[in-house]
């Protein structure tokens, strides 16, 4: 027993140290592209290509961490959070492209508008439980995306319509670097907020709701207000990522700001890393997003799949991703989570047991 606990602690420590080193490298390596660093003869550790992928990875850190607040901590399986991403993106995008606001002034309105929208739809939606909430939130996600693309006024699309919305390029030196660190800032906020929530009265109320909503209510938790607040908080963080995305990507449309697969990806990331924890969703986001990019062949370190032509490669990558998803869900329902949560050791017998627990 004690030996297990010790080795477990050791593994966790190794994981934290490795994670810390990787994170520090990822955060600092981009700095070598600065002129000053180049002038000082420091070797270039990353290029622009990496910035883009790294920024995507960090964006998913924000999305998964934000989802964790409503899905992991509060226990409401939100399946339409991408709506908040899109609302954030279009808020900033419209303010910059149409109202000519400067980016940094327009950005703060993205989380505000996303949170307001979440509070508005959350009031009726969060009365639903289980599958019904999941389905309804998915419906909201889809409906918002379609409305944004299709709303016309006097025959003109209000939000750029099907052809999307172009933003002026943000004039800043080292753009890639700037947006990478800006996204990192958003991730830091998301993680800090989660850390605070889990140590606050608010967080205890949310966990109580997740564990048993009726019991939470009769000990005095204002369940409606708490659920709506958690939903709005998740929406604000998601909207912030969307706002940054719009200026970073310069072009936004329904496809890149309301993609349904983001809903699934952010949940999977949180599940992989550990729902309800501070760093779990972030770790899951990094792992899964790198894997997706790797399989898709967009990472510099790549490999050739045997018997697969280059055209078929992205498709085969998706098949592998799907199979991986199936395997992970079947064999490790709580495994990874419990492991990083320090509750158990990832072993063959554990896999067998978790399989037995969930099978028919």
């Amino acid at each position, binding site marked *: 027993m004690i030996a297990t606990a010790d080795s477990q602690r050791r593994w966790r420590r190794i994981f934290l140290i490795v994670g810390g080193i990787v994170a520090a490298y990822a955060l600092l390596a981009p700095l070598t592209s600065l002129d000053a660093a180049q002038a000082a003869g420091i070797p270039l550790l990353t290029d622009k290509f990496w910035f883009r992928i790294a920024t995507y990875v960090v964006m998913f850190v924000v999305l998964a961490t934000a989802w964790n607040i409503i899905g992991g901590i509060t226990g409401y399986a939100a399946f339409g959070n991408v709506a908040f991403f899109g609302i954030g993106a279009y808020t900033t995008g419209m303010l910059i492209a149409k109202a000519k606001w400067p980016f940094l002034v327009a950005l703060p309105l993205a989380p505000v508008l996303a949170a307001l929208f979440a509070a508005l739809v959350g009031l009726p939606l969060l009365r*639903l439980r289980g599958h019904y909430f999941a*389905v309804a939130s998915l*419906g909201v996600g889809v409906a918002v995306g379609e*409305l944004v693309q299709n709303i*016309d006024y006097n025959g003109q699309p209000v939000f750029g319509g099907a052809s999307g919305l172009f933003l002026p390029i943000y004039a800043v030196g080292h753009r890639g670097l700037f947006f990478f660190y800006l996204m990192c800032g958003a991730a830091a906020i998301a993680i800090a907020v989660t850390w605070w929530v889990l140590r606050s009265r608010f967080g205890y109320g949310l966990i109580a709701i997740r564990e048993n909503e009726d019991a939470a209510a009769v000990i005095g938790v204002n369940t409606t207000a708490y659920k709506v607040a958690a939903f709005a908080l998740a929406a604000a963080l998601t909207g912030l990522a969307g706002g940054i995305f719009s200026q970073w990507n310069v072009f936004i449309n329904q496809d890149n700001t309301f993609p349904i697969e983001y809903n*699934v990806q952010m949940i999977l990331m949180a599940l992989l890393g550990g729902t309800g924890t501070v760093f779990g969703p972030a770790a899951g986001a990094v792992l899964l997003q790198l894997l997706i990019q790797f399989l898709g062949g967009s990472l510099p370190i790549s490999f050739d799949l045997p018997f697969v032509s280059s055209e078929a490669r992205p498709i085969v990558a998706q098949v592998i991703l*799907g199979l991986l998803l199936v395997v992970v869900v*079947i064999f490790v329902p709580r495994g990874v989570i419990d492991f990083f949560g320090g509750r158990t050791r990832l072993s063959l017998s554990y896999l067998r047991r978790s399989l037995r627990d969930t099978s028919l």
Partner: protein
Amino acid sequence: MAAFVQLVILGLLAGGVYVAVGVGFGLVWGVLNIVNLAHGALVIVGGYVTWQLFTAFGLDPFLTLPVDAVALFVLGYALQRGVINRIIRAPLLFTFLLTFGLNLVIVNVLLLIFGSDFRSVTPTYSGQGFELGGIVIPYVRLASLGAAILLSTGLAFLLSRTRVGLSIHAIAADRDAAQLVGIDLRHTYAVTYGLGAACAGVAGGLIAMIQAITPTAGEPYTLQAFVVVILGGLGRVSATVVGGLAFGLVEAFGQSIPGSGSVFANAIAFGLMVLVLVTRPQGLMGRLR
């Protein structure tokens, strides 16, 4: 007035396909408590079976429907028996993720086999129809509405009058009690999912006759199945039929709003679904579970 009648008829005709798409999804959700995100992909598989039989052997597409049903039943049975049964006791998010993973696999395997080109099934009578009170009613649409009603009736009959149907009712009501009276849970679960997949396959066959299909076109059908089942109410085939026809009507009237594209109608349908969920979670026809 004539325009109104026209919209009602068009809506009901379109609703036929939605009924077919919805019944299988509703069965799997209601009985297995699985929201099957792979449903749309199964619909498309059915579409490709019909297309393949039509192009390779010149088989009449309506005659391919039973083949769709059998093929998809086998596929569905295998999926549930081999994969989904293994997480049936896990929290609901896991079934979401698992079926999404299956969706990803099915869609991309279809892409590898058939490519991303749009395929359509055009028998000699496609595009033909007859006129009724100033409205042209396409034969294919009318026949597919008939096929959908036939499919639902058959399913309802199977569920209420056969041994298998009773077992399915039993596992839906109480899994553990059903096991106690000697029902083979794994088999019955697999049969249920297989039936759901078979319905999806027939729906796919019908859809292939009405519009061109491509492997990635399945997602909207999963979403439509949601709306249909929610509108009608979970747990009964007849409720899904009502839901499907209602969805067809909503879509027809939504598209008739000046200035709104066909996609806009989708937003209206989803808005309606959310409204129904919030105000009447048991659906228009359903009982609260």
